[in-house]
């Protein structure tokens, strides 16, 4: 008898699930979406799952992820969690609109799509397809590329729900929109969401995307997010990942920037079994600006892979990447930064920095910058380092009476702070700052999620004192 690899078995299972549930999966689709789905499915059937022989996946092996038997939910779960409990607490001092996906499906008290007084529409993508089919169709799958890898195709074939945000032209949403992905099941779940964010001309949006586990069960999430940023719009995008050690998360985000728009994206990974964050950024109009930042703290057997592709498709654009990470125990951290400056994209300013601290011999760090430049009038810089803690600094701190543990903590925190300080929303920055400190001290529990963490912030960790506030 032929032995099949787990990825083949899983693929076969998904293919039969798709055929079996095809009508249910697409019951909400517009004609265009339905055709996309079938096309994507064909692509997935042909390509299958990505594997380590593909350059982009060389350092991220999904083999162990496929070794489990996952369930797929083709409709929202009937029983809902205590919504009150989820929505009652909020980040201290941080006024947000919270929207949640619960085991892959939009969770709401009543309406699945709401229009804020300023005209911003937020809610479920499935609902948006029903209510605003034209708006959705105009952008749906226009930026994602089903040929990028099998998982993108798979997501496009299967995705039924996700988050939808639309900010009309000229509207500035002052309140941060917080998207919470809640996984809470007793079985192993495979979740595929698709999020669509449309930000109109000169509009402004800040959103925070939290991926949290509520328990220690295994899960596999494959999410695709498309963000369209129209002319002159400003988008601040934050990602906060605190998943359990058995979780796998593949996150692919496509940012499309029109002229003179500005994107700042900051992904903070506090915990997770296997996480792959891929950001595709297209600077499609002149004078666009993209800041892509990330901080990752991995230990035990955890694996984090951050990938950024910045396409300078037009001239006079700036991009700035800063990724910093700490790999402890047997953890693996991967960073790949690809900057493409096309032939006519003169006056491009692109910089990319990746810094890693490898705390043990068993931890592994792969860092690969890749600059592909076809224009001549460009300023590009890149730097990648993998180092240990600075022994001289460690001794200096100890010589003042601070013990090994706190001395290391001070240095690790200082290392991470550069990325945290890029967070421009103060309340969020303070909150993430606390979470990072907790994480570094090994005190961050999986249930310390951004939303449910109702405790007021800690203010007085020994080295934390801000004199300007006394």
């Amino acid at each position: 008898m032929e032995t099949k690899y787990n990825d083949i078995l899983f693929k076969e299972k998904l293919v039969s699930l798709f055929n079996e549930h095809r009508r249910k999966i697409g019951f909400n689709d517009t004609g265009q979406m339905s055709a996309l789905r079938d096309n994507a499915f064909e692509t997935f059937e042909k390509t299958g799952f990505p594997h380590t022989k593909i350059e982009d996946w060389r350092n991220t092996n999904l083999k162990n992820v496929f070794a489990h038997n996952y369930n797929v939910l083709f409709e929202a779960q009937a029983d809902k969690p205590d919504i009150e409990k989820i929505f009652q607490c909020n980040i201290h001092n941080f006024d947000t609109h919270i929207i949640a996906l619960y085991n892959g499906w939009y969770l709401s008290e009543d309406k699945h799509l709401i229009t804020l007084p300023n005209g911003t529409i937020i809610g479920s993508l499935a609902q948006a397809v029903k209510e605003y089919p034209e708006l959705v169709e105009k952008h749906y799958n226009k930026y994602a590329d089903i040929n990028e890898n099998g998982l993108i195709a798979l997501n496009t074939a299967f995705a039924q729900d996700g988050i939808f945000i639309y900010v009309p032209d000229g509207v500035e949403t002052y309140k941060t929109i917080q998207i919470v992905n809640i996984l809470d099941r007793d079985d192993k779940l495979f979740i595929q969401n698709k999020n669509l964010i449309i930000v109109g001309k000169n509009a402004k949006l800040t959103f925070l995307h939290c991926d949290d586990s509520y328990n220690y069960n295994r899960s596999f999430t494959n999410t695709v997010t498309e963000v369209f940023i129209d002319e002159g719009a400003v988008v601040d995008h934050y990602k906060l990942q605190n998943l359990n050690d058995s979780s796998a998360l593949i996150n692919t985000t496509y940012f499309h920037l029109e002229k003179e728009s500005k994107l700042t994206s900051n992904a903070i990974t506090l915990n997770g079994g296997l996480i792959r964050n891929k950001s595709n950024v297209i600077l499609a109009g002149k004078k666009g600006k993209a800041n892509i930042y990330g901080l990752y703290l991995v230990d035990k057997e955890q694996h984090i892979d951050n990938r950024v592709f910045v396409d300078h498709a037009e001239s006079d654009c700036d991009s700035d990447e800063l990724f910093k990470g700490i790999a402890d125990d047997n953890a693996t951290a991967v960073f790949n930064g690809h900057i493409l400056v096309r032939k006519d994209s003169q006056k491009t300013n692109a910089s990319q920095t990746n810094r890693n601290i490898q705390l043990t011999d068993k931890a592994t760090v792969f860092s690969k910058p890749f600059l592909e430049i076809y224009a001549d009038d460009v300023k590009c810089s890149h730097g990648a380092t993998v180092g240990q803690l600075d022994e001289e600094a460690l001794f200096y701190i100890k010589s003042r009476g601070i013990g090994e543990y706190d001395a290391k903590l001070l240095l690790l925190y200082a290392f991470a702070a550069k990325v945290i300080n890029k967070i421009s929303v103060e309340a969020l920055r303070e909150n993430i700052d606390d979470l990072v400190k907790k994480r570094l001290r090994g005190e961050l529990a999986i249930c310390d999620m951004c939303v449910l963490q109702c405790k007021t912030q800690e203010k007085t960790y020994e080295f934390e004192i801000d004199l300007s506030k006394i």
Partner: protein
Amino acid sequence: MLKIKDLQVSINGKTILRGLNLEVNKGEVHAIMGPNGTGKSTLANVIAGKPGYHIDKGEIIYKGKNILEMPPEVRAQEGIFLGFQYPVEIPGVSMTNFMRTAINEHRKYKGLDPMSAGEFLKLMKEKQKLVEIQAKLTNRSVNEGFSGGEKKKNEIFQMAMLEPNLAILDETDSGLDIDALKIVANGVNKLRTKENATIVITHYQRLLDYIVPDFVHVLFDGKIVKSGGKELALVLEEKGYEWIKDESSK
């Protein structure tokens, strides 16, 4: 307070200190002078507990205890302070947080409660005045982007904050302008009590006009080859080290 007996230290297989003896008592100021590369900083580092050195022989007795096995932070909590010849820049760690952590660690060691933010702020202000260090420096990351002189002043500021029993100042005077030198010396003098002791490592007799030592030692080739009163520094200033080299090679 400090008794160093027949100390022999090597680094990477190279012997630096070769049977060094030194005794420092409460209330005393000792100056250690000597040519470049003879082991002055090595001695200071070994007393403070810097890793990487191999103690081949001898002992360092501080307050009656052999401290060679003691981790550096405990030595600091026991009252040893090293003013670094080359203070380290620590980007991202603010001076304030650094000092607050240090002070509270010292207090914890003594069984005291952590200092309140208010008390701490008051202490900072008081000590800033003492060493005439600008408040804006203490709001920055530890030594980051500080000028050479500012770094040295910052060492004295930290010393003032921690009030050590035994301060070892490794070339704290080098890189300081005349005014800064006076300020630093003045700071050191104000912190002097009958209970504490200071070891100043210097190349210049000028500092000793301001911080008047009880003893001057010459460290040469890993040993203290000559000791005397403050007038020895004047002789060294005038005659250099050649005569001592000759004398000790005899």
